[in-house]
């Protein structure tokens, strides 16, 4: 554990001594802020429209939670597609480029120390990124009265989905010494996972439900609605384990080929 933490801390620190950490953080805030702003504007417009129509029954399911927070969390996960590869690509590819892998691989370390150290570094950075977005829901709480529960469950969901993304990005970083290639590999995997949901309407219904269940992105739905459901957590944790397992295989291939 000590060795794992030593590596995690080193890599977390590395994000903030180079511009990469701040850049990713700013871009993420900019994109989510922009999307949040769009949601607010839409909310105001629809409210005004309903008021003009004088149709109170339409307001039943219309509130800050359903109209702003739920889509806000979905937006964040969408932004992960572009952002996560940017901060996971360096995790191991950079070690190889700088030849410091020769140090890590010859020190008395187990693969699991390197793997989990890198994973925790990615997770911690993800956590920092997410914490910085808390300003948006806080604005809602200050100026409105959303249900607070779904904010917490939503963040838990976003974090778990993000963790799954990080595990894939880390795996990609183990496969190459070129950071750009690592980023593209993880980006393509995320895009494929995303396209699975878009294409399902064409598929047959039983096949469709399987795909829906396997879809990484749909795992967010219940979290965003305020539901912390065990199947979703199990799915996401398993996803991380699978990603890490692939990463472990990638290290082993490097070690013994």
């Amino acid at each position, binding site marked *: 554990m*000590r*060795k794992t933490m*030593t*590596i995690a801390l*080193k890599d977390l*620190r*590395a994000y903030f*001594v*180079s511009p990469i950490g701040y850049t990713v953080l700013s871009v993420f805030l900019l994109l989510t802020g922009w999307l949040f702003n769009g949601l607010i504007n839409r909310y105001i417009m629809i409210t005004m429209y309903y008021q003009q129509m004088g149709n109170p029954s339409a307001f039943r399911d219309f509130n800050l939670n359903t109209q702003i927070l739920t889509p806000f969390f979905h937006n964040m996960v969408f932004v992960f597609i572009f952002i996560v590869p940017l901060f996971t690509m360096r995790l191991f590819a950079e070690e190889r480029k*700088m*030849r*410091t*892998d*020769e*140090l*890590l*691989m*010859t*020190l*008395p*370390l*187990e693969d699991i*120390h390197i793997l989990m150290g890198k994973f925790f570094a990615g997770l911690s950075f993800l956590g920092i990124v997410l914490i910085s977005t808390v300003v948006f829901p806080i604005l809602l709480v200050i100026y409105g009265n959303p249900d607070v529960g779904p904010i917490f469950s939503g963040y838990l969901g976003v974090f778990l989905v993000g963790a799954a993304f990080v595990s894939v990005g880390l795996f990609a970083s183990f496969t190459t010494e070129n950071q750009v290639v690592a980023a593209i590999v993880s980006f393509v995997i995320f895009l494929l996972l995303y396209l699975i949901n878009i294409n399902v309407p064409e598929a047959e219904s039983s096949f469709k439900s399987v795909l829906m269940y396997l879809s990484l992105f749909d795992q967010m739905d219940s979290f965003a609605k305020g539901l912390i459901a065990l199947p979703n957590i199990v799915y996401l944790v398993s996803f991380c384990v699978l990603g890490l397992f692939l990463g472990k295989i990638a290290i082993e291939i490097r*070690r*013994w*080929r």
Partner: protein
Amino acid sequence: MLEVSGLTKRYGDILAVDDIGFQLEKGEVAAFLGPNGAGKTTTLRIVTGYLPPTAGAVLIGGVDLRREPTKAKRMVGYLPEIPPLYPEMRVEGYLRFVGKLKGLRKQELEKAIEEAIDRCRLKDVRKRFVYALSKGYRQRLGLAQAILGNPGLLILDEPTAGLDPAQIVDMRSFILELKGSHTILLSTHILSEAAQICNRVLIIHKGKLVGDGTLEQFATGRSLEETYMSLVAYS
């Protein structure tokens, strides 16, 4: 302390190391000589567990590197051809990082860091960032990292490359200090250096071990230089 047998490494079609075997006893200092591309770095990388061999076995202190890699690696300090440094760290921070990964704890760790800084004459730059170090200082930091925690076997890939003359003398006397208590395998292109500090010479040519003996054995009649030239003569 180090036992290598049947070591072979293929990179695709290139046979970089071809059935090398040798044994180093505790306290021996061995020079690994050979022309560019002979396979020195490749051999050292296999011995330290960075590269897997295509065939052959490595025993460190009696421990099989393949079966118990972590246990074997605990006994090894390794200075790669290119010092493996993190530019964004400070000298001290880097040594602390490596020390922790070697499993050193609090007081033991601080003591080991002081010792390494002292031995490699890094006192003046201990607070500096690694990216701001000159090549020679990087080399010294790489060596400091290798000797950190006092491992019994040191594998040094061209340890004097890029050092200034005073540093080279320093490095040599440093290795002489460790002679007897540590086992050292170092590669070099400077024959006089090998003759000065080593008691064992291994000569590798085109991946094959073409010469292995004590310095005395090599020195009888002919100089090390003559022997080297006759063994690696370009045919």
